[in-house]
């Protein structure tokens, strides 16, 4: 049963399980995956946790509008300090503030303080760091993949030290032609869970907007060891979320 506004969370949540710490969402131009990020952000805030959102693609007003239609009030969460929004459209802020690496250090520092504060707080729910998106991080780092990977590594280390989770969006089709897929491959390696949005091989359709494949590596987690690791289902985007269903089950 798909919950109203919840975006058919059942299939996706079932595929994701509960133990995944590092989630990488891959998408392409034909099948944008930002809606997955919105869903995960909504879920993170709804379950009583807190989140840090690193936005390089859009300003706050955009996400506010989108999530509002999904039944989640980002402005309220921001005021209550459950959501910490980093508008990074102007990142890193120019040469006078030091090198790119220094800017990443400062950004990491702020995130780390937030995570620590959340952990020490009374209502210590799950903390989620969401990055939209890694390809743009590479752009603001002026193409320095190493700086981006260093920053992502530190965020990744946070997940194991501080019991928080990391969700990163990356555009897979940008890297499709490169011999060395660099950032994409590294992210796939560190991910516990890879959610890939792709168009249907049969092309555009009114009722089905694409397919999602979820690979849950289940690294050495007892619960996941016997569970299904690879999922594939279709999705249809809606104003208030998305529906997920197996191929052919849509009337």
């Amino acid at each position: 049963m798909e919950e109203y506004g919840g975006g058919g969370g059942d299939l996706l949540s079932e595929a994701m399980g509960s133990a995944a710490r590092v989630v990488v969402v891959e998408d392409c131009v034909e099948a944008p995956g930002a809606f997955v990020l919105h869903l995960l952000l909504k879920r993170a805030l709804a379950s009583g946790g807190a989140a840090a959102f690193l936005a390089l693609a859009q300003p706050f007003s955009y996400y506010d509008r989108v999530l509002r239609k999904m039944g989640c009030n980002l402005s309220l969460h921001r005021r209550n300090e459950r959501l910490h929004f980093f508008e990074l459209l102007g990142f890193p802020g120019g040469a006078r503030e030091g090198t790119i690496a220094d800017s990443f250090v400062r950004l990491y520092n702020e995130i780390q303080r937030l995570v620590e504060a959340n952990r020490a707080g009374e209502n210590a729910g799950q903390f989620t760091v969401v990055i939209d998106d890694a390809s743009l991080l590479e752009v603001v780092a002026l193409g320095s993949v190493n700086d981006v990977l260093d920053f992502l590594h530190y965020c990744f280390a946070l997940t194991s030290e501080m019991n928080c989770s990391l969700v990163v969006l990356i555009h897979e089709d940008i890297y499709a032609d490169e011999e060395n897929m660099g950032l994409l491959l590294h992210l796939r390696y560190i991910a516990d869970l890879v959610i890939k949005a792709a168009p249907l091989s049969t092309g555009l359709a009114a009722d089905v907007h694409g397919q999602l494949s979820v690979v849950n590596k289940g690294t050495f987690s007892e619960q996941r060891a016997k569970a299904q690791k690879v999922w594939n289902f279709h999705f249809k985007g809606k104003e208030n979320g998305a529906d997920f269903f197996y191929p052919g089950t849509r009337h």
Partner: protein
Amino acid sequence: MAEAVVRCLRDGRLDGEHAPALAVEGSLQCCPLAAGAMLHIAAAFASQVAAGKAQARGLVVVAFDRSPLVYLEFMRRRSLDTNALDRCVRILDCYSDPLGWKQKIQNQQHQGNSAKQFSTNKENITVYRSVKDVTKLMSSVTELGGGFEEGKKYFSVAVDSISSMLRHASVPSISGLLTNLRSHEQVSSIFWMIHSDLHEPKVPRAFECLSTMVACVEPALVDPVCGESPGNLSVLEQNYSKAKFIVRLKRRNGRVKHLYEDLYIEGNDIKFDSAPSVSIEVNQSLVPKAQFNLELSEKERSDRANVVLPFEHQGNGEPIRIYDGRRSLPEAQRDLSLTAPALVDEIKAPKSGTAKGEIHYFRDSDDEQPDSDEDPDDDLDI
């Protein structure tokens, strides 16, 4: 075989030789299994050290890809108790703060608070903050290794992983580090993990050259339509549950031995399963894929057996027919088959007093298959 590999590492170096080195290679398609293989080898080796069966007195793990606690937790699950771990395992933590960012932040904030979790050195975990400095890394490793026991005792080194190191330092500097470690008088053995698809092909090969053993973790099933989403789901699913563990051991006499096992995840542990028909399978996979056929079919085999070799005595009671390379015209017209060349009938002259020259030819190559890689000198122990 994983046990054979651990045994080689445990036995360590001989006098006058460099330490044995194992390169574990994995790829994205089976990366949890490759990670598991590395953890397994580290844990199995540490158990041998703890039991006093190894040349080394301790293991230094240089951890880039995983938190040190993951190694310790895995080893604990393999029945290594805290005492044994404290005694035999040291971890150089290049995961928590590889570039010193956390320390930089602390210094900027003038916080000397060392109670923060990530900056505390636990007993057998040492945080290392300058991964770009390979020389310093070398001295940190040897310092940790020297601290196991009094006197100049052996220790072994595990690097997880070289791929992460390569983000911070060049191939020559890391090769230099590994070579220096191998030739260090106190290093008993060394093993490392590298993710082959993160680099150009020549990079893992360069590190293979430095090793005496290479263990490749390969996907159990190869999807012909690889890379596309979602591809073959069941293939993907299988490849995350089990993989092939293929080991190449370089022997001292130059021979390369191939071993093969299956490896799979069971619960939160990793297990190995010896395949019964080892050599046949590996030999078959050794035949390079070419556009021409390198194997013989059954018909071809029997035809080959029927070929009459020149100067050879058929010994089947018929008049001796020795083929002298010439085909006389009538015979050639009668016999069109190429596999049974026309023979010139010659009745051998009965032996007379004046002996003519004779050629006695004994075929000795029947048993050996062509292109077999059996080394006739294999039993020599030089």
